[in-house]
């Protein structure tokens, strides 16, 4: 593949336009930590940002600046400095100002927190909808590994030839800081292929999906191991859950 084609592939990837099998190829390069791949991605991201110059100029309303500063708990510059000239008025006025200012800041911070919470909830909702669509697909089949015994790791693996692999795990062990779980696609021949890292919640439950070039005919199993944060190109610990296809 020529350099020009590689540039184009990374630009397509940065625009969210790349599809398999090229998508899997680029994601594998990026996962490998290759400096050349990182450089091409940054160049593509920069070109993306330059495309923003194609947007016609639009003038935001002046109130937007106040809204943003207020939502971040930053006061808009106003004419409060005249207070200095008036000797800061009376102590009672100052106390009242401090009280209401503190209260306003608190309320703004609350509002900011609610917005962040809403954004997280919306992201979770989209993720859930995507997962549900995967599970509803007629091409999805379910596999299971582990035992139902209390506190023993157990995994339900859903595979779909067109949409990849979805892992639902429970009773996963607590990890030391700097460690993550990594999913592997074990081919019928060759070494395990990284399929993404993830963390479990406080109860040991986790949901992880990989859409990278999954070929059920060439895959023997799906495995799970503990790896350093950022993932590994090959397992560095013995997989503790292996689900055969």
């Amino acid at each position, binding site marked *: 593949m020529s350099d020009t084609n590689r540039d184009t592939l990374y630009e397509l990837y940065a625009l969210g336009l790349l*599809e398999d099998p090229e998508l899997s190829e680029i994601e594998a390069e990026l996962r490998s930590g290759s400096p050349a791949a990182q450089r091409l991605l940054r160049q593509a991201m920069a070109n993306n940002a330059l495309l923003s110059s194609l947007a016609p100029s*639009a003038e935001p309303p002046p109130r937007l600046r106040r809204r943003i500063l207020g939502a971040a708990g930053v006061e808009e510059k106003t004419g409060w400095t005249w207070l200095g000239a008036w000797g800061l008025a009376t102590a009672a006025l100052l106390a009242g100002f401090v009280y209401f200012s503190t209260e306003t800041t608190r309320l703004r911070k609350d509002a900011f927190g609610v917005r962040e919470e809403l954004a997280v909830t919306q992201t979770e909702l989209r993720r859930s909808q995507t997962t549900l669509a995967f599970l509803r697909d007629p091409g999805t089949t379910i596999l299971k590994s582990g035992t139902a015994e209390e506190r023993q790791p157990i995994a339900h693996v859903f595979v779909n030839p067109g949409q990849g692999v979805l892992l639902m795990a429970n009773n996963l062990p607590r990890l030391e800081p700097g460690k993550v779980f990594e999913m592997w696609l074990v081919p019928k021949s060759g070494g395990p292929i990284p399929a993404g890292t993830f963390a479990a919640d406080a109860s040991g439950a986790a949901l992880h999906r990989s859409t990278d070039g999954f070929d059920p005919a060439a895959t023997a199993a799906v495995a799970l191991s503990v790896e350093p944060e950022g993932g590994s190109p090959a397992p560095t610990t013995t997989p503790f859950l292996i689900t055969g296809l």
Partner: protein
Amino acid sequence: MFFFPILFAALDSESDRALASRLKAREPEALREIYDKYGRLAYSVIFRVVRNAAAAEDLTQETFLRVWNRMAGFDVERGAIGPWVLTVARNRAIDYIRSVDGRMSQNAIELTGAESPALFLDMESVILNAQRAKLLQAAFHKLSEQQRTVIELAYFEGLSQTEMADRLSQPLGTVKTWVRTALRLLREELEEPVTV
């Protein structure tokens, strides 16, 4: 009218570095400054995508709050804050129209990852400046109408190539050719090499 002469002339890596450093220290004045520097640009990109003033205001607010709140992960020495802000703005807008349209492509859940500050390291000021923006404008207008359309559908509407083929009633292979040719031509027209 395009905003690039105003916007990109203002993109100065040294001053942006200082600004990023003050944002990271959560100086209130720095938030005012970054809004004054990039607010109009971000709003223009968002408005072009959502075509609704009220939604554009909400999304511009979300963009700057997100940047303000995530500065801890930004590398002040190597990061390019302008491209980051514009990428966050574009992604918030695309995410919004996907939600409104009920479009749930696989890419829809990937946008947040595409905003990671780590993707905006080591971009020199040459990447975003008035000259390159003008070159891109000129190159864009040299493209065929179909090539311009697919680039706009990709960048400003977040459509996948399959969705573009449906929208334009064209074979997928034809759309892919238009997209790849357009990207190649745009890159070739940008005379200055991009230093990353």
